[in-house]
C-alpha cells in the first residue's frame, strides 16, 4: 500500500481507540512540489493519516466484517502546525458514537505534544456495489485483513481499564 500513512501502531483497542506513528521522510517524492522552498507534509496527508487510523480502528472492531469503511464526512478539520522532514506525528483516534453503520470518530495528531491536525470524521461501513455473483465483498474482506496483518503484524489489543 504505497499511500500508507501509518508507520506503526502504538496501541489499539479494536473499534474504540487507536494510536499510531508516522515520520515524514525527507525523500518523499511529493515534497518537491509541496513546497519547493519549504518542504512540509501537505495538510491533507496529515488528514489522511487520521482517516486511515480511523478505518483500521473500525475494521478491527468488527473483525473486518465490512468490506468497505468509507469516509462520509470530515468536519472541523483544522491544521495547527507544519510537519517538516524528520518530524514524527503521533496520531490518535477515538470512537465517539456509532449509529447504525455510521461511526463518529474524534481524531487528532500531535508533533512533540502540539496538535498539528484535528478533525471529526464520520465513516460508514458498507459493501461494494459490485454484482453479488462476483463475490467481491468476500475478496475485499480477506485481502484487507491480510493487508492489516502485513502492515501491522498480529497486534495485541490493549484493554481499557
Amino acid at each position: 500500500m504505497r499511500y500508507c500513512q501509518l508507520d506503526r501502531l502504538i496501541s489499539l483497542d479494536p473499534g474504540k481507540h487507536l494510536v499510531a506513528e508516522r515520520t515524514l521522510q525527507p525523500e518523499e517524492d511529493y515534497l518537491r512540489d509541496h513546497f519547493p522552498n519549504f518542504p512540509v507534509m501537505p495538510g491533507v496527508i496529515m488528514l489522511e493519516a487520521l482517516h486511515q487510523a480511523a478505518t483500521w480502528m473500525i475494521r478491527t472492531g468488527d473483525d473486518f466484517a465490512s468490506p468497505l469503511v468509507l469516509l462520509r464526512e470530515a468536519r472541523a478539520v483544522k491544521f495547527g502546525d507544519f510537519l517538516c522532514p524528520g518530524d514524527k506525528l503521533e496520531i490518535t483516534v477515538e470512537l465517539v458514537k456509532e449509529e447504525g453503520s455510521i461511526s463518529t470518530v474524534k481524531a487528532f495528531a500531535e508533533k512533540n505534544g502540539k496538535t498539528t491536525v484535528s478533525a471529526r470524521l464520520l465513516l460508514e461501513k458498507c459493501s461494494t456495489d459490485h454484482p453479488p455473483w462476483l463475490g467481491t465483498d468476500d475478496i475485499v474482506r480477506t485481502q484487507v485483513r491480510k493487508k492489516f496483518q502485513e502492515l501491522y503484524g498480529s497486534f495485541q489489543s490493549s484493554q481499557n481499564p
Partner: protein
Amino acid sequence: MTATSEEVFAKVQTALIDALGVDDDEVKPGATLVGDLGAESIDFLDIVFRLEKAFGISIPREDLSPEDILTNGQFVKDGLVTAEGMAKLKSRMPWADLSKFEQKPRVQDFGNLLTVQDMCNYVMTKVGG
C-alpha cells in the same frame, strides 16, 4: 437587517460551534472564546467569515483585534495598558465588557478577553433592532 438578541445569540452560537467544533452546551454567554472554547488565531478568521455570512455584515479586522492600540508605546507601558490606552480600547470596543481586564490590564491577557456575550453585543451593534 435587524434582529432580536435571541436570534443573534442563536446564530453566533452556530458560528462558534461550526468554527470551533465545540458542543452547543459549551457555548454559554460567559464563555471566553480562547480560554473556554479553545479558539486560536486561525479560528478567529473562520468565525469572522461565518458571522459576516450569517448576518450579512462586514467585520473589519481592527474591530475585534485592536493590535494597533496594544502595540502602541503611547498606550502600553511595561506590558500594561495605560489609562489612555484603556480609554482608546473602550471607545474602539464599546460593546465589550472590559471591566475585568481593566483591573489588571496586561497586554498578554487581552487575547483571552472576548466572551460569547461580547460577540453577541458586537453583532447587535451592527444589526440591532
